[in-house]
């Protein structure tokens, strides 16, 4: 019976859902209560994931696997959920009658990501993916008084559904050829099917669903609109927890891609190259901060895929490690974005003007977060990219490494433009100081500290990611 204890995090999710649901039933202070419930529940999930770290169990006819890999991802998802809840705060920017509901749907999306981490079978994987996505389909349209938000919501829904259809079609092909939906059994079958284009095609289509979630070129079109159209907290969740989940599953599946022959790996390499280049180049011309972060996310997804195409344990470990770092640095960036535009409107670069005077702490947090995204030491972004590029170089993908390194330089340009607005340009409107609540201050210090400390002492976390990655098929 004790083996069921391995499902603690899932149980905690259920409890949290009930807590939030109860909070939503109340009449007054719904948002505050739901937020408190989400926060408590998030901590529960986090603690449960950490507690079940050492366990390895399989459930439900071996479709659901709990191991060090899945639990690490669950820790990350729980942390991302908590950070997003903190960023949502009072739900500014969301429709007023639907603010408390943010927490509920973020939780269901997190639940999808949690089960995604454990799914070792294609159908459960697909279902988890859908749960994670559908909750977001609900949240994005609930943006308050923002025309572009509707368009974003519609785009997200239509493109998202198309992606699921494609994924499902790919699934059917894979199942048809291999006769199984279990990843380990497919892995056994695949080498024999190397000459079978339809099987490879099916696998590619299945991967497309995940690449959509990660916003890798050519599946990135939704990202800028959704980042811009969703309210800050929701966008933060899409940009952090959701990304980590996608990276984790991609790490699981990319070994299949390698078994499927060189074409798939080559295709991934090309996607990585185009993602990095396109994301960074288009980010340069953005004025809307969230849109800029969206294109930067497209580029970042490209870097992650650079690590994954190495399809070595080192590469998966590097991708996972980078995913964890990305969670921290992007949360820091979104936190500042959300607080600078506390009224819920979308901040532009000009809104950052004079930030160093209005709130030195936020300016410093933004500085560190952007430098980390750019991959500049001593922040964690540098080691993260170093590991990714190192993995790619070990397999001889030197042109991806050179391209990635050059792209980092390009990205520095637009990150520095943002830093310039925060640190250099005077604030013409002479706005007053921008005070932070005690919790937000603590969060700023914690995230900045983590970004620097992990940049200098990456070993423990990387070793953790490495142990997890070695469990992958």
């Amino acid at each position, binding site marked *: 019976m004790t083996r069921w204890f391995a499902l603690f995090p899932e149980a905690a999710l259920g409890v949290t859902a009930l807590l939030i649901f109860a909070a939503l039933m109340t009449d007054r202070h719904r948002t505050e209560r739901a937020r408190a419930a989400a926060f408590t529940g998030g901590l529960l999930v986090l603690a449960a994931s950490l507690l079940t770290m050492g366990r390895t169990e399989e459930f439900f006819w071996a479709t659901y696997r709990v191991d060090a890999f899945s639990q690490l991802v669950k820790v990350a998802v729980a942390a991302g959920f908590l950070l997003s809840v903190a960023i949502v705060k009072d739900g500014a920017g969301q429709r007023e009658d639907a603010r408390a509901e943010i927490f509920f749907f973020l939780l269901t999306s997190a639940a999808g990501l949690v089960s995604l981490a454990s799914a070792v079978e294609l159908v459960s994987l697909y279902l988890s993916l859908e749960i994670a996505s559908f909750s977001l389909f609900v949240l994005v349209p609930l943006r308050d008084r923002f025309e572009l938000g509707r368009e974003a919501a519609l785009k997200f829904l239509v493109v998202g559904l198309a992606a699921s259809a494609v994924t499902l079609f790919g699934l059917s092909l894979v199942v048809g050829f291999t006769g199984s939906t279990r990843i380990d059994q497919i892995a056994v079958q695949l080498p024999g099917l190397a000459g079978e284009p339809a099987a490879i095609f099916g696998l590619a289509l299945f991967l497309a669903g995940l690449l959509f979630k990660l916003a890798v070129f050519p599946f990135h079109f939704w990202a800028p609109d959704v980042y811009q159209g969703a309210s800050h907290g929701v966008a933060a969740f899409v940009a952090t927890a959701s990304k980590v989940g996608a990276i984790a599953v991609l790490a699981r599946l990319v070994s299949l891609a390698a078994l499927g022959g060189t074409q798939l790996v080559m295709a991934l390499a090309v996607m990585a190259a185009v993602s990095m280049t396109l994301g960074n180049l288009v980010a340069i011309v953005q004025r809307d901060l969230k849109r800029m972060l969206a294109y930067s996310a497209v580029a970042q997804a490209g870097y992650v895929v650079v690590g994954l195409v190495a399809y070595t344990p080192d590469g998966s470990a590097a991708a996972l490690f980078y995913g964890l770092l990305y969670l921290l640095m992007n949360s820091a960036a979104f936190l500042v974005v959300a607080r600078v535009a506390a009224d819920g409107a979308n901040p532009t670069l000009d809104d950052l003007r004079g930030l*160093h005077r209005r709130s*030195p702490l936020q300016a410093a947090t933004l500085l560190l977060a952007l*430098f980390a995204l750019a991959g*500049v*030491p*001593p922040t964690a972004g*540098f*080691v993260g990219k*170093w*590991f990714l*590029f*190192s993995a790619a*170089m*070990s397999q001889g993908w*030197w042109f991806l*490494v*050179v391209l990635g*390194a*050059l792209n*980092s*330089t390009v990205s*520095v*340009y637009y990150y*520095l433009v943002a*830093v*310039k607005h925060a*640190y*250099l340009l005077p604030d013409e409107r002479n706005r007053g100081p921008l005070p932070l609540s005690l919790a937000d201050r603590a969060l700023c210090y914690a995230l900045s500290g983590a970004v620097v400390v992990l940049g200098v002492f*990456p*070993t423990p976390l*990387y*070793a953790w990611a*490495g142990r997890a990655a070695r469990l992958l098929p």
Partner: protein
Amino acid sequence: MSTAPLLTILLACPVLGLAGILVTPARFPGAIRRVAVSSGVAALVVVAVLWARFDPSLPGYQFVELKRWIPAFGISWHNGVDGLNLPLLALTSIVYLTGILVMWELEVRVKEYFAFMTLLVVGVFGVFMTLDLFFFVFYYEVAVLPMYLLIAIWGSTRKEYGAMKLTLYLLVGTALVVPAALALYWGAGLGTFDLTRLAAAHYGRSFQLLVYPFLFVGFGILAGMWPLHTWSPVGHVAAPTAVSMLHAGVLMKLGAYGILRVAMPVLPQGAHYWASATATLATVNIVYGAFVALAQTDLKFVIGYSSVSHMGIVLLGLSTLNEAGINGAVFQMFSHGIMTALFFAAVGYIYDRLHTRDIGRLGGLSRAMPLASAFFIIAALTGAGVPGFSSFWAELLVFLGTLRTFPVLAIIVVAALTITLAYSIRVIVLAFFGEPREAHPHVADIGLFLSLPRAILVGVLLLFGFVPHLMLDVIAPATRSLVQALS
């Protein structure tokens, strides 16, 4: 010999200084300055101890510290000193301290300024002491980045443009270095970033020929290599005084040091194959920089282009691959660092008081501010290679080295030195003698306190000008073993 980790202590000086500055509230600028200056003094003291305890007769590295850092990647905390980096550590500590003193009058955003400047110095010290390729690149980028803010916030003439141009150029350099570093790691197959072990690894000839240009150009950009030097004058003109001092004085040496410490020992065949090409580029640097300096009207642009020219001498010395040339190159790195720092410190004072650096609007300065003018003139004479200052020996050695390997280039370089002399004399005569071209408000000559940092720099130039063997005794044994390893 004591076992105290002197190099880590040295690195801790600016790190603790940075921490101290960060925790001091911004409303106490005086305290922040004092924290900064004490970290500068502490660093200088530690370097002095290093210098005193350093034994040139011993082979290999001294004061070595070796600890595992990221075992999964063979990255270690590995520091050490030999005759090649000891002078550069000394240079950094001198320019760091004098730079803080020069900026004593700064009133705008004091806390942020000293914080970024100390961070930059952390990076520079790190590069000069580490023997691990990962940390080399790590510190290298740490040193590059604060530059953007330092120039963009506290700079002058076209500061935003200059800052962005400088940052992007230097990062393109690192974008070439990072893939090359990873290629060295996987190419050796030793699972280590330890430079001493990579230098002993055997790389195939074609690998060496392919990777060497990545490293040379990547590091060369920071050393002001023609035709990728354009960031340098623009950036130096835009930067505030102490940042110009640190940048032209110390940061450009990081590039040359990267070539000397990473590219040449690890890829000797590459160095030999590309030597004539790099020597030619370096000669273009010297000649082109000198000619362009001749045409400038802004004092800082003159210095900026003279730096391009002088860094060409360093690159040329490295390209000779013989003892005299490399000795000269290292000596030149040191003495050019001190000289340029003095240059920018002198111009900084003039600009602060007269708010112009235009030669056409100055003139007769030596009468109004004799001491401040003297500092500039001494720097200009050092730059022109006048005997009695340390650059003379450095340039002489590079010239002798070049004469042996590239006689034609050596003759061109000597011819170019006359142009160096010409632009130095031109600036001195036009700006400091004759009648003032425009009426300037009467300004006081430089005070005793502000002349202290400049006087220190002059003292160093004279010391090594008259007693060059103090420096050469340290450099020469290390160069000898490097040249043996290269052949």
